[in-house]
């Protein structure tokens, strides 16, 4: 089954000191950037558009189109901001990429900046990962020394500075406008739109915000051409991507494959479920995307396929759970995450996520009141779609989809603690294969 995989971004991850410029260059590093600098910025943008690359940060917006929204007649500087805040539960692709091959992202930044006429690019790294920020900073220093950053890059006349900025550890700072506020030194809370970042983003100037993986996918497109890229994947979801499998699988990790690969195929690559267990449910793209069940394992995992299944491709973070798992406990843990990460700006999310936690806690403890499950859904209804930003939508999606598939387990919470129905020690890594 491994022939299915397409190690492109991850091709060099396994080699010794893969994060050095020397190592990166031995994998055709900066060939894409060299090509790009010989073209006009508009031509580079056109190639990215043609490739069909879509955002890998969650929403799947076409990357080239996003770049083309930058008004070039605006007298303010243009900025590129790379979103490396990766905090969604289950999501763990950007951090390994940055650790193993920071230059992939940096080459992408050179190309993207060139295409949008940007001379200062920022990478916003989540606060908890100091080691990733350090590695990125070291790579940036290497590139300044090698003439790939700074003034007159490689004699092309193009200037570019890259600033690596560490956040303070907040999921909401992955939301692009909150990220911009945080980057400007303010409290990270989402901004009112319009104006959209493309018009008035960082320091009220035109700004493109892209995910690490989106920008990292650009060098190979320049190197190999748009057609090469769009030959992979499905009709509307072109190319390859990194799927992150975690949880009750035999070999958790990053699996790079064309878009449209099914969960069943990915699970096979990961060696199947842990021995002696079977799949109960999984998230397709992090905890904010409604969960799927064994019935959904053959649906192509691309943007359209997942929407068709009533969920989203999200960050392609597949959290996999087997039959030892209590759905009530899992949902409570997710809800606690959202309540903790809610920025507090708007009423439904600030107040509602806390209420969900209180309801789920008593269901977990087997002390739920008759009617609590309906109340849970009704509170979700009062939050869903009514919040200021998309965080609350994710907070609600995991609850409603869990109740949809496993209602009786929640109702069991009126009488029985979840730890009695699903002894927690059985779902741990050290529980062994024994059932």
């Amino acid at each position, binding site marked *: 089954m491994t022939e299915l995989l397409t190690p492109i971004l991850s091709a060099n991850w396994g080699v010794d000191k893969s994060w050095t410029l020397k190592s990166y260059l031995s994998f055709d590093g900066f060939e894409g950037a060299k090509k790009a600098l010989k073209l006009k910025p508009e031509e580079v943008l056109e190639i990215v558009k043609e490739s069909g690359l879509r955002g890998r940060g969650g929403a799947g917006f076409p990357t080239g189109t996003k770049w083309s929204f930058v008004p070039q007649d605006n007298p303010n500087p243009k900025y590129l901001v790379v979103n490396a805040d990766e905090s969604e539960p289950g999501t763990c692709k950007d951090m390994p990429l940055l650790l193993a091959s920071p230059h992939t992202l940096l080459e992408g930044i050179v190309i993207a900046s060139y295409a949008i006429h940007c001379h200062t690019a920022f990478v916003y790294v989540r606060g908890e990962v100091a080691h990733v920020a350090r590695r990125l900073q070291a790579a940036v220093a290497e590139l300044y020394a090698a003439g790939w950053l700074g003034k007159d890059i490689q004699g092309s006349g193009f200037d570019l500075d890259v600033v690596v900025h560490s956040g303070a550890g907040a999921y909401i700072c992955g939301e692009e406008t909150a990220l911009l506020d945080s980057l400007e030194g303010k409290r990270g809370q989402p901004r009112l739109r319009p104006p959209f970042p493309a018009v008035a983003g960082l320091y009220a100037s035109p700004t493109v915000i892209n995910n690490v993986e989106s920008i990292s996918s650009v060098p190979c497109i320049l190197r190999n051409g748009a057609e090469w890229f769009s030959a992979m994947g499905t009709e509307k979801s072109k190319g390859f991507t990194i799927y992150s499998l975690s949880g009750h699988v035999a070999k958790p990790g990053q699996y790079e494959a064309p878009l449209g690969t099914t969960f069943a195929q990915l699970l096979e690559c990961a060696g199947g479920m842990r021995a002696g267990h079977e799949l109960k449910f999984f998230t397709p793209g992090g905890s904010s995307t409604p969960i799927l069940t064994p019935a959904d394992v053959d649906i192509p995992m691309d943007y359209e396929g997942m929407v068709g299944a009533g969920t989203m491709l999200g960050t392609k973070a597949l959290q996999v759970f087997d039959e030892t798992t209590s759905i009530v406990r899992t949902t409570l843990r997710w809800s606690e995450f959202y309540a903790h990460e809610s920025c*507090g700006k708007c009423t*439904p999310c600030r*107040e509602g996520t806390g209420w969900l936690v209180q309801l789920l806690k008593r269901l977990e403890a087997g002390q739920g009141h008759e009617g609590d499950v309906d109340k849970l859904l009704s509170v979700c209804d*009062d939050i869903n779609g*009514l919040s200021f930003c998309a965080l609350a939508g994710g907070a609600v999606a995991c609850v409603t989809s869990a109740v949809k598939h496993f209602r009786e387990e929640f109702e069991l919470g009126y009488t029985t603690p979840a730890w009695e129905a699903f002894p927690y020690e059985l779902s741990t890594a050290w529980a062994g294969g024994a059932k």
Partner: protein
Amino acid sequence: MSEELVTLTIDDREVSVPKGTTIIRAAESIGVYIPRFCDHPGLAPRGSCRQCLVEIPDAGNGRGFPAPQASCTMTVAPGMIVKTQMTSAKAKAAQAGIMELLLINHPLDCPICDKAGECPLQNQALLAERVESRFDGVKRRYEKPVPISSQLLLDRERCVLCARCTRFAEEIVGDPFISLCERGTHQQVGFSGEQPFESIFAGNVVQICPVGALTSVQYRFNARPFDLVSVDTTCEQCAAGCALRTDSRHGTIRRRLAGVNPEVNGEWSCDKGRFTLASVPAEQRITTPQIRENGTLRPASWPEALSAAADGLAGGYGGDAKVGVLTGGNLTKENAAAYASFAREVLHTDSIDFRTRQVSDEETAFLRQQAPQVTYADLETAARVVCVDFDPEVDAPIVFLRLFKAVTKGKLQVLALGAQPGRTWEKLRAELVSGTPKQALKELDLTVDDIILVGERAAATPGTLDTISFLRAKWAWIPSHAGDIGALEAGCLPQADGLTVNGILNAAMDGEIALLTDDIELFAAEGALAKAFTVSLANHKEGIATAADVVLPTALVEEQAGTLVNWEHRAGVVNPAIPGTLPTAAEVLARLQAVIEAYRAYTREDDADFEDYEDDDDYEADEVSGFERPEEPPAAAAPPTAAAPSEPEASDAETTSEGEEVPA
């Protein structure tokens, strides 16, 4: 007129509003009230409370929004269809859901909350109709209340986190000493114990807080809104001219709130205006006339005091003493006008001045050409505003707010002459210009697009005012008292050869004239006051009254109707906020005039007749002078008692002109 209009449909009614209007404002324009917390017309839209959700089945492009949208942030579009809670079950349900969520952590301690009875949260919760909460969990708790300044208390349990207060602090006044902090359910209004919320505008947040989370120490537990009597009036604390609302209960003023006057104060006020409840505290008040006897004041009846005053000022029977009149700047225009005509028509003097500070002939000449040139609105469109010996934040705080708005939201450049570096100027991003005002003003090359705001301290630097009056820029003189401009307009300034305040005090020092004053500040006049016979219309014990020979008490500004004219020469209506028993200055002067005229009339009578009157049992005061003869301080004009004229010793040495300068 060139404003582009957009036509949309709200609750099945067509409405046309200017492009860029938010839905919530458009709805208001046809009388549809959409519930809200974070929205405030004076603040930038925020869209965070989500109480204002409405259904938009068509955004004007044929497509609708799947979920209700915040009407306070979305602007109108042609052909848009909006359904508020009045016509959409979906919008109503969404609003009810938000309300329930807002209340799950709310303490609902209305019975001990100052806001109860006028609380948007109470009112809108009842509108939402889903009265029973389904929340049966544990509420968020905080210590309550905590002081955020000497005047303000914060109850974080009641806070709905609308950020009106923090936006006000940052956007409107530039004093961001409070700010939201923490996240999620722990988000709260943050403050620093080391740097309290000491803005001279801080009190406004109590008024705009949509719940009882911010209360004032002064008003706390003082009244219920439904027990208050509200009166719209004009602030008497400075020349800014803010509209205020005064709330009283049982005849005592309990609080003052900013009133709404878009052209002047918008809906803000400063704390001086807001927290000064009584212009004179009750224990400081003078309530009866007084006469100085052997160096100390003693209570007197109105007739006695009036005749003593008349004696000193009119020089006794048939006399006409020389008098200087000092009105001060705290009078309504009506009272000032009464002084002006009293001076000229009764005392026959042009020596009248409202200023009670160092003045110059240059200033007097400058003030004679006072005419309205500049308005608040002009400050927003000016290219440059030059403040000359004028500190906007201290001298007329609302002027500061306009300048701040124009600087932060527009292109205004502020310059300051004669200013020391400080926070006011930092907030206004002002350039401090050094050098002599005369030279500096000329070098600025001011044009008709520029405005000079000059304060009363400019009188101290020769040449400043002369220079200003011939520059091309428009200018406004902004004095420090609420009644200064009114007094100026009413004629409380020498018009011909009268003495100004300097001359009046010198002459008084030399024993040449008597003084008639209102309750003016004493400044450097003690010497003159000790020397001259002084009649003061006063209402507070510690002031001029301590030096006057006759004290005639008057009503406070909050007890009378009248007009205060602000620095723009805009008239503001003053309404009586509480009942009073004392006459206004104008009324006292009318009584005094009657007494003086009676005196003068008496010179045409003969003494024998007077004795006859005195002995005549059938004596009817009315027949003689048109007055009655009350024993007690009267409500109406008081007469000279028969006894009074026979006590000329009540007037002292200064009235030496007695009988010597009898006109007609």
